[in-house]
């Protein structure tokens, strides 16, 4: 954010005071203090938290390669299956995607219209080329062409409503100087759409639920677990407000919890209500931030949901209180084990565990990270920041303001839609090829066949948390077992007064 001169001066003075005092002061958080001095408000930030250890670099896929052979046509492993299906546990419909990753929830309002249009057009282009990618609307409602992108979706719409929808679309395009956009290509959706049912209920009519291919009940998200959604006032323009059904230019604070979902039984009631509305057709996902993962997944499993979605604390957001974002939640990788355990325990009596899908989000940007998540038990992966990066995001993390150097979350004049579309298309295609190469090079027919056995850990903690062997082939348990053996040997061979000395020496040697 381009801070005012006053703020920068305050920062400079505070820095000098901190440096000259002998007490410890966290200089990385200096700007947080300065912002509080400036306006007494809670400072916000965008994107994900800074995790000093997200475990991903400490895991290796044995023998994998992103690029199968130098200078080849990149299609060595073209027959590897990368399809991802969602639903079928209780829903009659299935959502099918050609890639095991999809666009995480990024709402209109949090993203500017050109970025949303770029995503829409890119996914349409990919679908035409045979690569269907699922898109999640985020909690801020859906855009007209997302909801009414098929002929079927218009069938129950009155003439008056039809006109209103088109008029709103015209006003949207006009505000962003995009009047020349071809309406026919815009009002055409070829990819599966998941709409988010969040505590803010930012949608105005049932078409939001009825025209979606899937519904995601958002209990929380990784970046602000237990806090509720947030769109700062300056980003709530008239058209964003109209889309959400809220007052303009006033911060939209969603409640931290669904007012009608306070416990497991309420979740069951809510899902059954949505099932009735959608005639049991639409797959329903429940999304939680990673915290008490085992307990949360256990509740979701018993609640008529088709899938659970967990979001690690590095997962991005448009706006979150800075401190809260950085201290609440756990990383994505350690969440996978309790999640899989909860699923395995629930399905211990039958073999239907594959019908329940586990989706993970947070700190996943490329094919190798996707593959690691899948090998550790995820069925699908949600990506947000990766798609923003492919559109030119510079990671300055000022998404909570109306100023974005890349023109994605603010300053819409700067975003070139066509370049962004190309970026997204290339990102998806490249990632898909890399995924095929990874699965193929470790001898798997499908990306979903990747297993824990394909991974090794490069440090003790990762080995312990993920139950993976270390690089030297040993597990974390081995040295402990050896210690126990030594203790027993000492019992026979050493006298009592020699034991302490033995351990001291051994430790010194180690």
């Amino acid at each position, binding site marked *: 954010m381009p801070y005012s001169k006053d703020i920068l001066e305050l920062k400079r*003075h*505070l820095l*000098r*005071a901190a440096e000259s*005092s*002998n*007490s410890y*002061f*966290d200089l990385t*958080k200096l700007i*947080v203090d300065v*912002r*509080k001095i400036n*306006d*007494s*408000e*809670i400072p916000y930030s965008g994107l994900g938290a800074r995790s000093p*250890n997200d475990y991903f*670099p*400490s895991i290796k896929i044995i023998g994998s390669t992103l*690029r199968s052979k130098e200078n080849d046509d990149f299609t060595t492993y073209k027959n590897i299956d990368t399809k991802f299906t969602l639903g079928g546990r209780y829903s009659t419909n299935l959502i099918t995607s050609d890639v095991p990753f999809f666009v995480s929830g990024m709402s209109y309002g949090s993203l500017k219209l050109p970025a949303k249009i770029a995503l829409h057009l890119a996914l349409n282009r990919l679908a035409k080329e045979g690569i269907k990618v699922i898109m999640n609307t985020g909690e801020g409602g859906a855009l007209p062409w997302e909801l009414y992108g098929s002929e079927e979706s218009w069938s129950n719409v009155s003439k008056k409503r039809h006109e209103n929808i088109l008029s709103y679309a015209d006003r949207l395009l006009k505000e962003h100087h995009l009047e020349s956009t071809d309406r026919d290509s815009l009002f055409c959706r070829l990819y599966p759409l998941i709409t988010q049912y969040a505590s803010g209920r930012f949608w105005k009519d049932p078409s939001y639920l009825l025209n979606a291919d899937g519904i995601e009940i958002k209990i*929380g998200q990784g970046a*602000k*677990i237990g806090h*509720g959604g947030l769109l700062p006032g300056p980003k709530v323009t008239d058209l964003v407000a109209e889309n959400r059904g809220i007052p303009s230019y006033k911060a939209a604070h969603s*409640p*931290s*919890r669904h007012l009608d979902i306070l*416990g497991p039984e309420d979740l069951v009631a809510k899902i059954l209500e949505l099932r009735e509305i959608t005639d049991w057709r639409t797959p329903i996902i429940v999304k939680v931030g990673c915290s*008490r*993962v085992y*307990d*949360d997944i*256990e*509740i979701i499993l018993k609640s008529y949901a088709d899938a659970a979605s967990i979001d690690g604390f590095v997962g991005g957001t448009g706006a979150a*209180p800075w*401190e*809260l974002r950085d*201290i*609440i*939640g756990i*990383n994505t990788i*350690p969440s996978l084990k309790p999640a899989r355990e909860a699923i395995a325990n629930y399905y211990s009596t039958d073999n239907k565990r594959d019908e329940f899908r586990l989706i993970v989000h947070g700190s996943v*940007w490329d094919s*190798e990270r996707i593959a690691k998540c899948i090998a550790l038990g995820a069925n699908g992966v949600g990506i947000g920041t990766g798609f923003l*990066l*492919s559109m030119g995001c510079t*990671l300055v993390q000022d998404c909570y303001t109306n100023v974005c150097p890349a023109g994605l979350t603010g300053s819409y004049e700067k975003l070139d839609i066509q370049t962004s579309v190309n970026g*997204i298309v*290339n*990102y998806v*295609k*490249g*990632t898909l090829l890399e995924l095929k190469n990874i699965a193929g090079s470790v001898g798997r027919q499908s990306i979903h066949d990747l297993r824990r056995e394909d991974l090794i850990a490069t440090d003790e903690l990762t080995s312990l*948390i993920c139950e993976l062997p270390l690089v030297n082939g040993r597990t974390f*348990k081995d040295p*402990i*077992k050896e210690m*126990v053996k030594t203790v027993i040997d000492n019992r026979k061979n050493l006298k009592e007064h020699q034991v302490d000395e033995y*351990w001291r020496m051994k430790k010194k040697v180690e």
Partner: protein
Amino acid sequence: MNDADKFIIRKAVLELAKTGTPRFTSIDDDVRNLPKVNSKATNLWDYVTAIGAQLSRPPYDPYRETISLNITIGRKKSRRVCLNIPLIIYGNIAINYSSLEAVHLALNRLAEKGNVLGLISEIEINTTKDNNKRKYPLFKKVPFYRNDSLDEYQNSCPEGLVLEYKDQASLRMLQNFRKEFDGPILVDVSEVFPLYTKTILEEGADGIIVDTDKVTKNERYKGKHAIAVIYDARNAINDYYKGREENDNDDNIATLVIAGDVNSAGKIVKAAAVGANVIGYSTSMLIARSNMYSEKPSDVSSIADNVFRHMLGTKGEIKGIPAALGYSDFHNLSASDLRTSSIDASLQGNIPLEGGDRTYKEMVEEIVNEYASEKGITLNSLETQQVLRFMVGE
């Protein structure tokens, strides 16, 4: 993610977005190969996070529901001080009189708005003017070895006293003051910690102050982090109360005030979860002091405004975090609400590792017992301790 990670991730994704063809190396390979230049700068606090409330425990809403931050200091009902924010402005930073006056003004303004927090100060503040009367609790700091009569320190009518513990003379001072002073007495034990805590509490201190910056410079805590200091300090207070439940005449448990490396809302919450009751907060002093470096120094009232606004923002943050963890009271936080992605932090603060609810030590212990029973071996407690000591370095 740090700046180096950001660079790698952006570069890698942009390469994909530009070419649409597979890369030679993944993001993780590049991150793994980064020289660990940042590791020294990383604070162990960064490896500790709290677990938020979701389905299994609904969160509170800090914008729409009341979140209590109230705390009382003082073991006896008759000598209590109540704070609405669990912070005492702690002056381990040298400031001039006008800076202190600004803090005083800010605390008064905060108290007028119902946000009472304390101040520990050695310097007297002139409060003779009507509009300058103190509206917040003052903890008068008594300099070491100035064993004068209590009257000298009561001129400013402090609600509490702070004594610095250095040796037996300090103990005598505490004994004398305890007889005469009715308000809470806090004893700064930073220089001798972890010794004498029990004795100090037995002599009637209402709480102890531990400055993690000072303690971690002691030989005994060399290489350890503030987390270990807070954990030990909490255990020291708990040890004092062990076996005393029946004969205990206290109305309130002794207060643990933690100062030092606890200067952001996140760290305040983590410190409270590890065991702190009140935080000795120095950032307000730092803000007041920063005016000294300005080319055009502001007047006292403007500096006070800065401190006031900063504290309101901090209060908002401190309220929001317990709410997101599913608590309506800040003081219900405990170490079980924390998780860590560092073995070191787990060992120093007995904090469970991410992905489960067991600490590193408990996990090692479990593997030892599992293996022993698998082999039909029975380890006595001494032998178990030997393995643990070796594995966890105790």
